[in-house]
C-alpha cells in the first residue's frame, strides 16, 4: 500500500513533467533548438496566476486564463525577438541565447516579486480521497493533474495528426526548406509551436505550484532541466515519447525519494539521463539521425 502511495504521487509529478516535456519536445522537433528558457515560462505562469488570483483576488479561472494567455504571448515574443534572428546560426549560439533568455526571465521576476518565496494557494478545490480504510490517500491535486495530463495528451495528438496546422508542424519538422516551398508558413508554424508549448507551460505552472505551494523566481529552473531529461528519455521530438518520459521521470524521482534517499533523488534522475543517453542516444521513441557524407 505504501508503494502504491508513492507510485501515485510519482504519477502525479510525472504528469506535470509530461506536460512540460511536451512543450520542450514540440519546440525541439520543429525549431531544432533546445529552449532552455522553457522552465522559466512555467515560473512566469505561476506568478501570473498568483498575481491575478491571490494578490488581486479574482476568481481562479480568470487567473488561469490570464496565465495561459500571458505565457502564450511571452513564448511568441521570445521566439520572434530572440530565436528567430538566429535561425541558421550554430546550435551553440542558439543555446547560449536561450540561456540568456532564461536568466532574463528569472531576474525580471526577482526584481518584480523579490526573492522571498510566495505561498501559493492551490487551484484545486477537490478534496483528497482515501481508499482502503485510510491506508491510501490520493490528493485532489493528483487526480486533477493526471486527468488534465490525459486530456492534453489526447487533444494534442488529435491536433498534430488531424488538423492542417498540425500537419504543417510535421512538415516543418521534417524539412523546413521543402515545407516552405510547398507553401507552408514556416515562421507562423514555428511561432504556433512556441505558443502551444508556452500555454502548456502555464498550465504546468499552475499545477506545479498547487502541488508544491512555494513560488520563487527559480521555481521553474529545476523542473525545466528535469523535463528536458524526460523529453530526451522518451526521444526528443516525439509526443508520446515526452509523455512516457515525463511519467517515468516522475516515478523514478518519487520512488527514489521514498526508498533510496530524498537528498539524492535529483542525482539519481540525472544519472538515469546520462545512462539513457549513453546507451540509446535517441531515447525510447527517437529516430536515428545520421549525418550525410
Amino acid at each position, binding site marked *: 500500500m505504501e508503494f502504491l502511495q508513492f507510485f501515485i504521487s510519482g504519477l502525479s509529478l510525472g504528469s506535470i513533467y509530461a506536460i512540460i516535456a511536451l512543450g520542450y519536445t514540440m519546440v525541439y522537433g520543429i525549431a531544432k533548438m533546445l529552449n532552455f528558457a522553457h522552465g522559466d515560462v512555467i515560473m512566469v505562469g505561476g506568478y501570473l496566476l498568483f498575481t491575478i488570483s491571490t494578490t488581486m483576488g479574482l476568481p481562479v479561472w480568470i487567473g488561469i486564463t490570464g496565465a495561459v494567455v500571458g505565457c502564450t504571448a511571452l513564448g511568441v515574443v521570445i521566439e520572434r525577438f530572440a530565436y528567430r534572428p538566429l535561425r541558421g546560426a550554430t546550435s551553440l549560439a542558439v543555446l547560449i*541565447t536561450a540561456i540568456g533568455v532564461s536568466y532574463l526571465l528569472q531576474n525580471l521576476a526577482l526584481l518584480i516579486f523579490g526573492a522571498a518565496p510566495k505561498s501559493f494557494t492551490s487551484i484545486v478545490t477537490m478534496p483528497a480521497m482515501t481508499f482502503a480504510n485510510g491506508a491510501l490517500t490520493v490528493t485532489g491535486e493528483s487526480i486533477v493533474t493526471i486527468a488534465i495530463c490525459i486530456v492534453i495528451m489526447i487533444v494534442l495528438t488529435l491536433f498534430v495528426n488531424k488538423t492542417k496546422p498540425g500537419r504543417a508542424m510535421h512538415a516543418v519538422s521534417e524539412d523546413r526548406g521543402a515545407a516552405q516551398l510547398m507553401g507552408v508558413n514556416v515562421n507562423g508554424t514555428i511561432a504556433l509551436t512556441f505558443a502551444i508549448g508556452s500555454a502548456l507551460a502555464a498550465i504546468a505552472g499552475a499545477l506545479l505550484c498547487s502541488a508544491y505551494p512555494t513560488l520563487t523566481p527559480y521555481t521553474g529552473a529545476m523542473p525545466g532541466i528535469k523535463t528536458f*531529461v524526460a523529453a530526451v528519455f522518451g526521444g526528443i521530438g516525439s509526443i508520446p515519447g515526452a509523455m512516457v518520459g515525463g511519467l517515468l521521470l516522475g516515478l523514478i524521482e518519487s520512488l527514489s525519494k521514498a526508498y533510496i534517499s530524498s537528498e539524492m533523488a535529483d*542525482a539519481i534522475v540525472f544519472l538515469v539521463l546520462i545512462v539513457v543517453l549513453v546507451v540509446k542516444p535517441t531515447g525510447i521513441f527517437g529516430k536515428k539521425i545520421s549525418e550525410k557524407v
Partner: protein
Amino acid sequence: MKQGSRLSTMKKSTKANGITYLMLLVAFAVVQIFTATGSMTNLIKGLLVPACIYIIMAVSLNLTVGILGELSLGHAGFMCVGAFASSFFSVCMRDVITSEWVRFPIAIIIGGVVAALFGFVVGIPVLRLRGDYLAIVTLAFGEIVKNLMNVLYIGKDDSGFHFSLKSAADLGMEPDGKVIVKGALGITGTPRDSSFIVAFILVVITIFVVLNVINSRQGRAIMSIRDNRIAAESIGINITKYKLMAFVVSAFFAGIAGVLYSHNISTLTATTNNFGYNMSIMVLVYVVLGGIGNIRGSIIAAVILTVLPELLREFSDYRMLVYSLVLIFMMLFSSSPAMVNFREKLSLKTKRSKGKKAKEAV
C-alpha cells in the same frame, strides 16, 4: 615570398600570445605597486584571488567551448571536485605537513588530477554525444557532483577512513574519530593557503599550457574536429582521443581553480551558487563575452565581470539582469545570419574605400 608568408604565420600567433603575456605582466605590476603604496582597498584585495579563479575557469572552459567546439555546462562540477579533493587532503595533512609551501603545491596537484580523472571518466561516455545533448549531460554531471557532495560524509579515526552517504552517525566511528566531510555542512578548517602570488602563478601556468596546446599539432587536431568532424576522421585523426584530451586538460584546470577557491574560504560547501550550473553558466558568459575561442578575451572578460559588479554594489540587483541582456544581444550581434551579412558588407565597403584612398594617394 614563400619564406615571408611562413614567417608572418609564426609571427602572428607568437605576437598575439606575447601581447597576452605582456598584459598579465602589467596587471601583476600594477597590483604590486598598488599594494606597496598602500592604495589598495580591502574590497579590491579580496577580489584578487577570485579574479584569478575566474580567469582560470574561463580560459579552461574556452578550451572546451571555443577550441573543441563542444558546449559544456558542467565546468563548475570539475571545480567542485577539485575543491573538495584538495580541501580533504589539506585538512587531513594539516598537522602532518606543517609547511604550506609543501602542502599547498601537493593540494593543487591533487585537486587538478582528481578533476582530470573525473573529466576522463565522464568524458568517455559523454563525448560520444553531440551539441545540445552534450550540453545537457554535462549539466547533469555538474548537478550530480554538487548533489553527492551534499550527502557525502567522510570521517577518520584510528582504524582509518569511514564513508557514508547518509549521516555522520552512520559512519560508525570510534568516539575519538573526527568527521572531515560533513555532508551539507561541507568541510571546515581548510588552511587558507591561497594567496594572490600563488593564484597569479597558476593563472600564468594555465594560460601558458592552454596557448601552447592550441598552437600545436594536438591543438590543430582538436580544432579540426570542431570545424569538420568527418573531414578530420578522413585524414586520420582519432576523434575520441583528441576530444578527450581537450576535455581532460580543461577539467584539470577547473580543478585547480577549485583548489584556489577552497583554500581561500574557511568553510567549503557545495551550493547552487558556487558549484551549481549557475556557476557553469556564469563562466560561460565570460567565455562568450570575451569571444568564443579567444583566450585573451576570456581573461579580460573574467576580470572585468568579477571587479565591475563589486564596484557597482548599489546596482547589484540589476547585475544579473544586465548580464542576461548582454548575453542575448552579444549572441544576436555575433551570430545572427542577418548581422553576419551586414558586417561582411560593411567590412567590404571599408576595404574598398581604403583601396580607393590608396589609389588616390598614388
